[in-house]
């Protein structure tokens, strides 16, 4: 499978300054691609467009030549930067995890999610623990591309390495395309096969 962005232009308001113009990129589902760029250059916005959260002002996002589905499970899943905002504070994490479609038990186990965490509320867990839930939730059966937007920035080094080791193995074995956004050069050198400078 191939995920393409063609001539993507985006502005938050109709007549406002454009965040970026005519961005082209294509990622294959066997690839791991890094997106690099300074703060405020629209990396997260690009991620949101690729995952279908935002509509570009012009241009289109295609998956195997077809536009992203409007309804139903989106094959491009994004993991957000702030796990504490990406989970419903009033739901137990068991229910949050159940939002994902057909997430394998194995994924949950390998991410190091403990059974005890399932019955807790988000404010009873740390950021790293929550991020594991967000990753597991995005790794449903039909996920073909994974966009990781600064997913490990706030985590300690041990947790970071655990999470990335798992993710690399998982996308490798399932043939999921990975798009990584990070400010950490060493991480990108280690994780990505190709870089897109933004």
């Amino acid at each position: 499978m191939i995920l393409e962005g063609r001539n993507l232009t985006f502005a938050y308001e109709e007549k406002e300054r454009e965040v970026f113009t005519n961005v082209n990129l294509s990622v294959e589902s066997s690839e791991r691609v890094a997106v690099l760029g300074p703060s405020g250059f629209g990396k997260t916005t690009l991620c949101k467009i690729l995952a279908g959260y935002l509509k570009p002002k012009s241009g289109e996002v295609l998956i195997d030549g077809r536009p992203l589905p409007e309804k139903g499970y989106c094959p491009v899943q994004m993991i957000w930067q702030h796990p504490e905002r990406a989970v419903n504070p009033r739901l137990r994490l068991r229910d949050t995890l159940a939002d994902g479609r057909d997430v394998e038990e194995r994924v949950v186990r390998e991410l190091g999610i403990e059974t005890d965490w399932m019955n807790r509320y988000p404010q009873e867990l740390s950021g790293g623990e929550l991020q594991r839930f967000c990753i597991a939730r995005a790794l449903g059966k039909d996920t073909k591309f994974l966009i990781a937007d600064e997913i490990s920035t706030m985590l300690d080094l041990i947790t970071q390495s655990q999470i990335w080791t798992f993710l690399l193995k998982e996308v490798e074995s399932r043939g999921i395309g990975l798009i990584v956004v990070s400010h950490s050069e060493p991480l990108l050198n280690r994780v990505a096969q190709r870089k897109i400078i933004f």
Partner: protein
Amino acid sequence: MKTKMNQRKKAKILLAVAVFFLAAVAVAGIICHDAAMVTDFSRKNLPPSLAYPFGTDWLGRNMFYRTLTGLSMSILIGVCAAGVSVVMALILGLAAATLGKKADSVITFLIDLVMGIPHILLLLLISFALGKGLRGVIVGVALTHWTSLARLIRGEVLQLKQSEYIQIARKLGHSNLEIARKHMLVHLLPQFLVGLVLMFPHAILHESSITFLGFGLSTEQPAIGVILSESMKYLIMGKWWLALFPGIMLVLTVVLFDLGGTSLRKILDPNSVHK
């Protein structure tokens, strides 16, 4: 070592006490409704004593029974009016947030319109137009009190729609209905319940005040408003107990409802676990 009660336990106990007291008053009031009507001129104008804890009035009626009956009537009116009002708020709030821009501006305009008129004035007008009495009071209170909660619910839904976890749930293939049931309800239900409970005291106070002013319940009914307005004539003659005890009981009821509502909010909010 002394074990310290945490806030949640305290809140639960407070809520239980409030609910118990209010239910007891409501039931007791219904039971002694007939006793409250009995007049006996051999015992008129008695100050508070063991046999008549709240004293008796100029017709020899037992003020304790009258107060209880009045309060229970107030509580029932409060429950009805607040119930109707809260349901209105929920429906209009949801409609404003989900039916698009036009419905939203119409409902927001309605909210501003009702909020722009002083409560008590609108209440008097509605109650008077409906021929006073029980129905007038309930409809009046219901029609004037839905606005703030409707605005709250509208805002909450609008904010929830923008939240990241709901956008994510949508991309995970969940329908609007599923999302509303699973993600939104847990946020709206506490607002709804707390709004309902905190509306009782308002309803009760307004019922008493318009009855006091003579636009509410009719004078033969032992309502708190009626008791208080009648007692005005006798206060000057030193019959202080006619106003003091019913007044204190009214305040106590209102405070208890308020306490109950605040405790409920604490219990329903998972953030309070750590306090």
